């Protein structure tokens, strides 16, 4: 693939990951934290952030022996073509599922907020056309656009969480342990799936080239994303006390609607709609590119662009599977965000451990032969 010659730096990679990890903030992350942790939803966000960072450090340490190789390369290293295809198919199912569901969620949310009379398929096609254009432009365009836009998205986010400061009430996050230590530190572990977007880093390693960039970009992205995830859950709970917090459909939108400084600084949710749509489009474009990229690499296809339209049709069709918004939300929050850790962290660690063991054994064999 021509993209193999493309190299991007630390900030570009980090920006892509920051958007991939934080796009859920604009959907339902603060609410799901409140559902699980109660008044301690923000502690749960902090806990999974620490876990994700520790796991990432472990993965980057294991990855140091496979610099420049993505998960498919690791699969191939372990099991040849069969290994590559198995890993590729697992990743394809994983990414296609979440991108299709997120596409549906964003379209539904847009319909609720701004386009109530438009048919859902029409709204999905809006996003899909952007995804197709992004995939045609390629990963370099997508990544460079992320580097430029992500700071703007972060600034918009800061305006929203700062703007609702007059509504903060510290007593809203009491009792401090919310739904209890087990809900946070026990079953809350599986919410590490909120960092499943890190899989993009493990797939784009060939474009990053050096292990140093891999580690620093990943650390920077997890650091900034943790800040965003924790502050989103904390701000939402400071403004909407538990249990009212678990009712909100779009937490950050609901926060933005409250901002009201005098007669002139009102209706800030228009900023929300803009940054939200941009973040969604960037995330979906990146995810859609990964689908066609992984497919072409899995099956050793020289060109990925002919796959774009067929894949777009598949994604469009899957996005229409959920019979309603509630089903789409449940598919994301109940199923995906509970199980995605198994692919992003579980499979990656497994591949790295097995590949590492094989490499060590091969080295030993080579040493014996010598």
């Amino acid at each position, binding site marked *: 693939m021509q993209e193999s010659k493309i190299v991007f730096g630390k900030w570009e990679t980090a920006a892509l990951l920051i958007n991939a990890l934080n796009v859920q903030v604009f959907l339902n992350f603060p609410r799901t934290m409140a559902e699980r942790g109660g008044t301690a939803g923000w502690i749960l966000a902090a806990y999974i952030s620490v876990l994700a960072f520790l796991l990432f450090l472990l993965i980057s340490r294991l990855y140091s022996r496979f610099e420049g190789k993505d998960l498919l390369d690791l699969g191939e290293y372990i099991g040849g073509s069969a290994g590559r295809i198995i890993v590729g198919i697992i990743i394809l199912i994983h990414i296609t599922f979440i991108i299709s569901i997120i596409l549906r969620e964003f379209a539904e949310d847009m319909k*609720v907020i*701004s386009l*109530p009379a438009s048919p859902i398929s*029409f709204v999905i096609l809006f996003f899909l056309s*952007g995804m*197709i254009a992004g995939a*045609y432009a390629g990963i370099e365009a997508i990544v460079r656009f992320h580097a430029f836009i992500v700071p703007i998205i972060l600034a918009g986010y800061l305006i929203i969480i700062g703007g609702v400061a007059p509504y903060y*009430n510290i007593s809203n996050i009491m*009792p401090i342990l919310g739904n209890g230590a087990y809900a946070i530190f026990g079953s809350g572990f599986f919410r590490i799936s909120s960092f499943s977007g890190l899989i993009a880093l493990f797939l784009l390693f060939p474009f990053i080239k050096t292990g140093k960039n891999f580690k620093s970009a990943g650390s920077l992205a997890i650091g900034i994303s943790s800040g965003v995830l924790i502050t989103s859950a904390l701000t939402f709970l400071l403004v909407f*006390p538990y249990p009212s917090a678990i009712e909100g459909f779009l937490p950050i939108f609901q926060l933005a609607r409250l901002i009201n400084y005098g007669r002139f600084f009102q209706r800030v949710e228009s900023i929300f709609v803009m940054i939200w749509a941009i973040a969604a489009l960037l995330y979906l474009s990146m995810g859609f590119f990964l689908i066609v990229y992984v497919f072409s690499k899995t099956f050793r296809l020289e060109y990925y662009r002919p796959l774009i339209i067929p894949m777009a049709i598949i994604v469009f069709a899957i996005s229409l599977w959920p019979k309603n918004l509630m089903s789409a939300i449940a598919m994301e929050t109940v199923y995906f965000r509970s199980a995605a850790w198994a692919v992003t962290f579980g499979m990656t660690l497994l591949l790295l451990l097995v590949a590492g063991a094989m490499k060590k054994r091969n080295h030993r064999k080579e040493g014996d032969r010598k």
Partner: protein
Amino acid sequence: MKRTAAFLLMLAATCTLLSGCYDGKEIDDQTYVIAIGLDKGETNKLRMTLQYAIPLAMGSSGVSGGGGGGGGEGESKSIGSMTLECPSVYSGLNMVNNSVGKQVNLSHAKVMVFSEDLAKDGRMVMLTRAITRGKEFRPNMVVAVSRGSAEDYLKSIKPRQEADPSKYYELKFSGYKYTGFIDQTQLHDFFIKEESTGAQAVAALVGVNTKNSTKEFSVGESSAPQKNRPVPFEGDYLAGNLPKVGDIKGEAMGLAVFNGPKMVGELDGEESTHYLMVTGKYGHAYVTFPDPIKKDFYIVVNLKQSRRPTYKIKLVDGKPNIKVEIKLEADYMSIQSGINYESEYNDIFERSAEKYLEEGIKRLLNRTSAEFHSDIFGFGNQYKSRFLTWDQWKNFQWLDRYKNSTFEVAVDVKVRRTGLTIRNAPIQGSEGEVQSP
């Protein structure tokens, strides 16, 4: 390939133009509702009154900004209203859409007024839950309870000093910052307190003043007799009872108290001031105090809250004991007796004002616990930090325990300024120094 990519990018960009295909709305194709009134219906569940802006009249009125209110007998061309009976708010909107030429838009609605009947039977809370679901209703909208009919209240509002009727409501309900007689109870705040386990809701109280002559004024309409006052103070009234005649008929004064979904009582203007002081939302206002030295004379100060109040809550024999400390600053505005409180007697006034406020605040606190059984101050939310988990807190049943609470109040008043007068010189007459009448 570059051409294809550029073409696709252009195609994607043009998609934004398609957003008008289904949802395009012109600003002048909408009817902007600025106030909604809900009463019990005669022929249906609800009687809904919509007050809407008439932009053409606003543009041609020639009235420019300015402050002040309105509401009166004269016709206001900048607003229109419509009343209908319907089974629910949304079905009512459908019925209105069938009547008015332009589609009803609620995104500029500033206030939602519920009749006392709806508030007392719990349906007001049910209705607010329904409207928080709709994105059309903004969370900053003021929620108020009307003493009497909400329809009558809204129809009594005819802004004459304001070209923009929505500005009239914004100013009216933010006036609590310099009167202290109501609280700006927003839909968001009302809604979360209805679901809170540590606080209960209040709503601004509004009403229509029906007096046409000063002869109709009566001390009996005030709460002065209950407070053993010979004459009422400025805060001793509920909305609709103020001793005034004039063009402005609609009044906002006092608070409606809720216990769970039902309205269980009313606070007058003075109690609302005390409520704001205890919750830390008090801005500043002119407050009248009895003169501590000369009976039947009054001292008026501009009183403001200098610090956030502090609370100390503990359990004594399983009952909450709540200590509230409030710090206030005052500027003398009027000393009727002419006594030099500014210098030698300042301490006497400060102690007297503290005692007066402590008694008033304690009376209010005891009313909320013993009479209303409603923690409208949110003491429970302060006490939550003593618990480790939500289940422990929930099982504690704060709202049930609140009715047995005991209170201790400490108010600290410090006079900071004296206006433009630093002392009072005696008034001179033919017989020498004359005492104030």
